[in-house]
């Protein structure tokens, strides 16, 4: 064989090796995967938990119906009305049990408040409580809700955000709700898809952050112009304003958004969360923005917010931010941030982001690094709610990620038409008339939610199929709560234009846990914003009391820690929003402990 031919063969071999690399990687992944079909015994043995779907059997038959917007948008209705299915957890009557609130969106369809009867069943009491019939022409369609005791009465009040008029309902000692929107001074119209309670100035009263998605001048139910779509797929500048309403302590709120620096951008905010990410004592705000970069607003002494997404490392590459979750994912006593985005094989590969804090810091601005790829939680699909949950009580935060956009006629696809328009210039993309009709086509639909189990050593493993959590509805909002008093975090998944799904979580009894129900005295009574630091034997980890997070959700108020096989904890340190620090030890495991903020 002559030398030239030998060289040709060698080069061809090199080429063949190169093109076979992805195939080899997939094969290796298949060979090393220990995934199996849902099996309770095997799942409990291998992963320490199993999810049992119990929705109907516990009395929950809620089905979300999407809002019908102006007929000028009917050709793309499923993607315009792609949100609104939300779930929040509240103990509205202070009986110690977690209740479930679900929003509907179509006019005339009712929201639901499922009261926990304590015997493993639930009953919808929204109508008698006065918070069912809230999807009304002229007022708007429900998009989500958050619960917080804004008047420190001891009962959780309801804030409902819409594409339309936001509403505040005062809880009348668990017997009903009174609409107090007008006297509270809330605005007439915001196209909101996220809101959170936080006490930004630590004055003991909960303030209200509301994130705008569509521009607030757009009335989606009576459109004056079809030029209301994003003006860019990655750099949109025409979204809704974000708002901060400061609680005056007398039942009224004043809009301080501009004063505190929140009107610096017009991004399309889809999700938000607030936590003290720099240990300043003040809650910072993290925003997941669709059609652009995400943002971190650092709270400067409760006086103003400084937008520092880029400096913090997470505000440079524009993606489609859909959800924000905050958790101490490495048990290093600091908060990481998980933001879901969109990934569709062969068309758009954004990848989700897991931002972990580095040791670098610039003044009060922490610096984050995206380790989603290294930890195996990067490639979801069309992501929505992403929640940190310790599903097996082993002490490591796992991840539940909702996926799926529009499931319509099987074997059809809208991506081609979508890609054409979003690749176009501002003049094209901004006008809804230029968006091709969907014609009942599926658009990133029938996707399966992910359950990523944290091995505690820096890697996550996807186990949804094996643990019974194989759900392929168009999931949006995900909340966790101990619904049955077992010390395990059950899952509630709200699905767009589809039924809600509830999973009872069976956790191995070998794993211990501890929970804390906090009540503020100097701080807001809900204790929202309090950081709970658990000193375990060998590690220190932290959680916080959330006023709403992920995508349109709020999980149980009580702070819960899984402990694995540990038989005791050293102590728990509570940093209350007021600045009070309280340390308690000698606590019994496998109980929720009620802790009232020390007044001295």
């Amino acid at each position: 064989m002559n030398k030239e031919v030998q060289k040709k063969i060698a080069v061809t071999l090199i080429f063949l090796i190169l093109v076979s690399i992805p195939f080899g990687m997939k094969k290796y992944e298949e060979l090393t995967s220990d995934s199996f079909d849902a099996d309770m015994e095997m799942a409990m043995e291998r992963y320490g938990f199993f999810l049992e779907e119990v929705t109907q059997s516990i009395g929950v038959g809620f089905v979300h119906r999407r809002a019908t917007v102006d007929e000028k948008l009917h050709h793309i209705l499923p993607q315009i009305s792609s949100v609104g299915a939300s779930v929040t957890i509240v103990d509205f009557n202070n009986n110690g049990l977690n209740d479930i609130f679900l929003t509907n969106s179509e006019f005339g369809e009712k929201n639901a408040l499922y009261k926990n009867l304590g015997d493993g069943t639930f009953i919808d009491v929204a109508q008698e409580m006065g918070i069912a019939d809230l999807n009304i022409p002229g007022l708007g369609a429900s998009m989500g809700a958050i619960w917080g005791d804004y008047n420190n009465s001891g009962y959780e009040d309801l804030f409902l955000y819409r594409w339309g008029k936001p509403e505040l309902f005062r809880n009348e000692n668990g017997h009903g709700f009174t609409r107090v929107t007008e006297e509270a001074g809330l605005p007439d119209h915001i196209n909101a898809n996220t809101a959170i309670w936080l006490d930004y100035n630590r004055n003991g009263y909960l303030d209200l952050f509301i994130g705008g998605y569509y521009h607030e001048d757009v009335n989606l139910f009576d459109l004056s112009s079809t030029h209301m779509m994003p003006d860019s797929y990655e750099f949109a500048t025409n979204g809704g304003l974000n708002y901060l309403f400061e609680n005056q302590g007398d039942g009224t709120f004043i809009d301080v958004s501009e004063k505190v620096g929140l009107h610096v951008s017009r991004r399309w905010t889809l999700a938000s969360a607030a936590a003290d990410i720099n240990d300043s004592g003040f809650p910072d705000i993290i925003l997941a923005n669709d059609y652009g970069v995400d943002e971190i607003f650092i709270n400067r002494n409760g006086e103003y917010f400084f937008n520092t997404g880029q400096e913090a490392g997470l505000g440079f590459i524009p993606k489609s931010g859909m959800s924000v979750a905050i958790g101490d994912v490495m048990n290093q006593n600091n908060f990481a941030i998980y933001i879901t985005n969109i990934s569709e094989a062969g068309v758009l590969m954004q990848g989700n982001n897991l931002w972990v804090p580095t040791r670098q810091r610039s003044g009060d601005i922490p610096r984050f690094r995206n380790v989603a790829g290294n930890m195996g939680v990067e490639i979801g699909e069309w992501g929505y709610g992403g929640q940190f949950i310790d599903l097996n009580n082993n002490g490591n935060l796992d991840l539940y990620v909702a996926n799926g956009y529009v499931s319509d006629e099987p074997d059809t696809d809208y991506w081609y038409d979508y890609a054409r328009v979003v690749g176009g210039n501002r003049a094209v993309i901004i006008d809804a008339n230029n968006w091709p009709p969907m014609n009942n086509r599926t658009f990133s639909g029938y996707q399966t939610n992910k359950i990523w189990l944290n091995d505690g050593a820096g890697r996550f493993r996807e186990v949804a199929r094996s643990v019974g959590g194989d759900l392929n509805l168009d999931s949006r909002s995900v909340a966790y709560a101990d619904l049955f008093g077992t010390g395990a975090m059950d899952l509630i998944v709200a699905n767009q234009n589809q039924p809600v799904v509830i999973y009872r979580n069976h956790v191995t009894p070998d794993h211990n846990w501890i929970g804390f129900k906090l009540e503020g005295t100097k701080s807001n009574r809900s204790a929202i914003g309090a950081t709970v630091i658990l000193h375990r034997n060998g590690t220190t980890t932290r959680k916080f009391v959330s006023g709403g997070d992920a995508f349109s959700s709020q999980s149980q108020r009580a702070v819960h820690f899984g402990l694995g096989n540990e038989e005791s904890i050293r102590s728990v340190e509570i940093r209350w929003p007021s600045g009070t620090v309280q340390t308690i030890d000698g606590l019994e495991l496998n109980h929720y402990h009620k802790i009232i903020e020390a007044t001295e």
Partner: protein
Amino acid sequence: MASFQLTDKIKNFSLPPGLIGPVLITAIVVAAHLSFGILDGWQKFAIALAAACVTEAVLHKFVTGKWRNLSSAYISGNSAGILVRSPMLWPFALCAAISIASKYVFRYKGTHIWNPTNFGIVVMLLIASDSMAVLSIQWGSNMWAMAMIWLVGFFVISKVKLFHICAVYMVSFFAFAWIRSVYTGGMFLAEVAPITGPMYQLFVLFMITDPKTTVSTKNGRMLVAFLIALVEMFFRLGEAVYAPFYALFIVGPIALIIDKLWQERKAKSLSKSASVAR
């Protein structure tokens, strides 16, 4: 006097033809990234660039025994770094490496027949579509920035006398967009929307004008540009998101092979008539 000399130097300044491509693509990448952050990150871009240059250097040395100028690998690496979209690093390196390696494997009469990046992208879409996508969204929403890139690009392309390819392709694209909109009943603007994005800027300015993979005559090049747009129309009717890449992947090598055969035949017939004349 000094200023006169300087003006004179500027007037007479011209880039060596081999550097025009690298300089143009570098200018576009730097300007677009600093303005809009078009890259997934410098790290990913650098990996694509490095993989292209290393593969070129190693394979060329292995095959010919000589080191070669890396400007063409540099362009391929840039294109892969911009066009590949993936949260992972390896697709950037692999696309660049496959692009370059294809030049040494698929050859006809002493020359490669696919535009390397076009080949790399299409193969990656076939073998690794669950790990990567191709840049298909716009750079910013600023019309002027987009217009500026087109203008600078066309200016440079006209300097190397290849503007006719771009012009024929663009005109054909618009014509076929109109035909598609009539056929499907869709909006004309939605049909032409993709050409306002960066994917097409790279496609038009760098891929279909690649001197190594274009045919020898001006008329032939214009015909090929038209045929690419025609085949692309069929891919678009089949709802292929990356229709232009597939069209070039098919039309490009066929055109090149026909061109080579035609040239050979022409040369033969010329030499035949020359010998008859003798």
